[in-house]
């Protein structure tokens, strides 16, 4: 029963929180760039407007893929809130990622095709890191279930600092921020139009936007697990992490996939492995 309530809270709160974060993100970014920026609720207005638009697609696969992306993202958040198995949460999340790519590939559009290829490269970069982070959780708690984390006395950050840094890479990629934003660039002047999202419009783009909010909350929830002992510190950790993400987003140029793969695999995996060795030895 308790689980069910948690799941419902997760399903309802995640998109609200995700939208709010998106709005805040734009405000802070504007502040960095000495602009005023839109209202904090702008993300919700945008999506509401999208749902009012006419339904247009290139073919029916896009409708299917947009829905499955949203459903998988919501289910992975629900599983997370149900204190489920971290690896399973990750695999369910991967359903959404795969369907987003497939939807982009279904259209005969050069932009969405290139976007899809780039999204695949992003998956290639962040997936191993996420798995290693989960293995780190297992090493500390003896289980892949989120349940087991609450039984720990010390914040996990103390034992897995490098894994947290590596998770930062995954977070940046998953949030599609510079320097790793090349599958769905947010900036109009860049040559790829909108990458994987090029062919989505109206309500279907709205669905994808909401799915992205779910994913944002999912990845941030993962970060939150690193300081589960104290809500205040957890909040501080999250705020600091997200501010850092925005700072990185605004100070870094978009890089090529080669740069990303090398950086993330060498540095990200390197840090993860070193941290895992500590845990194995300890």
């Amino acid at each position, binding site marked *: 029963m308790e689980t069910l309530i948690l799941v419902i809270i997760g399903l309802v709160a995640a998109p609200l929180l995700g939208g709010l974060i998106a709005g805040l993100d734009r405000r802070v970014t504007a502040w960095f760039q000495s602009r005023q920026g839109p209202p904090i609720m702008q993300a919700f207005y945008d999506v509401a407007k999208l749902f009012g638009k006419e*339904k*247009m697609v290139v*073919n*029916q696969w896009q*409708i299917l893929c947009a829905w499955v992306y949203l*459903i998988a993202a919501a289910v992975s958040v629900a599983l997370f809130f149900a204190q*489920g198995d*971290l690896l399973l949460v990750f695999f369910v999340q991967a359903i959404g990622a795969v369907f987003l*790519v497939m939807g982009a590939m279904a259209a005969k559009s050069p932009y969405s095709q290139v976007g899809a290829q780039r999204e695949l490269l992003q998956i290639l970069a962040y997936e191993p890191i996420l798995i290693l982070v989960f*293995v780190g959780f297992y090493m500390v708690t003896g289980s892949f279930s989120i349940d087991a984390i609450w039984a720990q006395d010390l914040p996990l950050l103390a034992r897995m600092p490098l894994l947290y840094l590596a998770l930062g890479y995954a977070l940046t990629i998953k949030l599609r921020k510079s320097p790793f934003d090349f599958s769905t660039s947010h900036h109009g002047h860049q040559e790829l139009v909108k990458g994987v999202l090029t062919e989505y419009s109206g309500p279907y783009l709205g669905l994808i936007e909401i799915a992205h909010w779910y994913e944002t909350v999912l990845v941030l929830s993962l970060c939150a697990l690193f300081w589960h002992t104290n809500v205040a510190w957890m909040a501080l950790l999250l705020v600091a992490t997200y501010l850092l993400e925005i700072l990185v987003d605004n100070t870094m140029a978009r890089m090529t996939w080669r740069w990303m793969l090398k950086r993330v695999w060498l540095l990200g995996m390197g840090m993860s492995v070193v941290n895992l060795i500590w845990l194995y030895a300890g």
Partner: protein
Amino acid sequence: MSNLLVLLILLPAAAALVCYFVRSMAVRRLTVLATGGILTLSALGLLAQGTFAPTEVGSFLGIGSDFLVTVLDFVLLGVIYFYGYKHKSLLIQGFTLAQVVLLAWFEFFMVGHEAVPAMMGDQLSLIMVLVISIVGSLICIFALPYMKEHEEHLHLKKTRQPRFFFFMLIFLGAMNGLVLSNNILWMYFFFEVTTFCSFMLIGHDATEIATKNAVRALWMNALGGLAFVIGMMLVYTQAGTLNISAILALGTTAPVMLTGLAFLCLAGFTKAAQVPFQSWLLGAMVAPTPVSALLHSSTMVKAGVFVVLRFAPAFAGTFLSTGVAVCGAFTFLACAALGVGQSNGKKILAYSTVGNLGLIICCAGINTPLALTAAIILILFHAISKSLLFLCVGTIEQSIGSRDIEDMRGLYGSNPRTALITIVGILTMILPPFGVLLGKWMAMEASADSNIFVVVMLAMGSAMMVVYLARWAGSMMGSRKPGARAESQPMLIRLPLMTLCLGAVVLSLASPWIYNSMLAPWIGSAPFVVGFGSLESAHGTFVVVPLFLVLGLGLLYAVRAASGYRRVKIMPPYVSGANSASGDGAYVGPMNGDVPFSTGNLYLGEMFAEPKLTPIFNALAVALIVLMLGGAL
């Protein structure tokens, strides 16, 4: 009991003879269909009767069966030597001669020839029999219309199908024999039969390249056979028995025993095409597609992982076990990397097979109850999904004349049925809540207990595998003209495709019960508890049925939304300019000419080029195998 065993092993052989000598198509059709049906029923019957302790087989036409197997062994080695001589392969001749000499020494001077019960059926054998008999039969049935069309393409004067079905059916019988063997000499005999069948089937089309690849497959597997004989002899010197269940119960870790087991694992590696032996399986692609499907899913390579799994309990907790795990994980990673660079559909499937076999062997090496469960789940579901995908590629190839995934772009437009089944097949390989992913999940949770190299290799390999399969599934989606007719599929093509596709989905849903009834009893301390359709262990929980319900309902809703697409405005894609009137993704370019749409996947040639990576991976794998063999001492 013994009647079922006779049916499972000897019926395919008898049916093979019928196919070979009665050269009528109607008889062949009937024979293959009936054999498939009877094999399926026998496998289910064997399952219903449950496991059985090692049993005697007795004599056959007044001749002792052990003696018969020995004679057949030498006959078979003679035949293999003959083919080595015919194709001027010194490697085959050398490996076969060495086998003959060692085997003769073993048979005449070492073995005491006490009576050993020849057959046994534990859960592992029963599951393998199901996979071989049902999936294998479906592939043989698919081959009926496929080979007819295949030969029409080749314009053969005289049909070679009798020979083809002869070896396909013998293969099934030999595999059933292999997995049910309790006498290690019998296991060796069936092991060699599968080597020979695969050689004949790979070279079936008798083209230059087919012969070349068949010869390569034969020498690599002859090496495996040699390793098997050496392993068998070493194990015998320590254990003093040919009885496999007695060997497993012995529980000794004397160096001689471990080295023997290491050689048996090496034999398994060659048969399962682990790096550096992967080239024979990739070369086997030149064979007609049903052969590839059979080799990759229910026979041959599964014989390799079976041998490793069969003996895994005997080396649990030793350095050899770690060595096996590392070798398997390395193959998983290497083949995932090699797969990223491929655009040939069959090659992609081949690398994914070898990779998944590596994962199974890795699980056998991790050797905990959880890991062994993962291995069997992977064997079962990989067989279903992979045979389905090979049959799909065969169907697509006969329809569009290419097996390159770039040529399959937008396949849904012209072949919606095949494309849909293929997409579902691919998704069952990489996504939850399907069985292969369930196995991968178990493997990863189990690997966290193992060692850090294994974990890292599995994490990286898993991501790459998702990339190259998702890319393929996505490119088959595409637009379809309103009112276009779906392609027609012959009955005997559609039946296996639909059965396998449904099997992959429905059996995944049933996995908690499959686990409870078939896997848990095999493993001494069952790692999972089944509750609410979920598999719970100390490591974590996979909510199979709830996930199926939620995602299934979600998918139904999504499909309904998508099928209402006629009410949605269909737009041409955005090409940052004027779309051409011809539609189809083309746009109006310079001089008002149409620029056609074309696109290609990113194969990351600079990082994942096959010619560049293969020698490096092979060298590393050889080093790891040497480490494994040496470490066993």
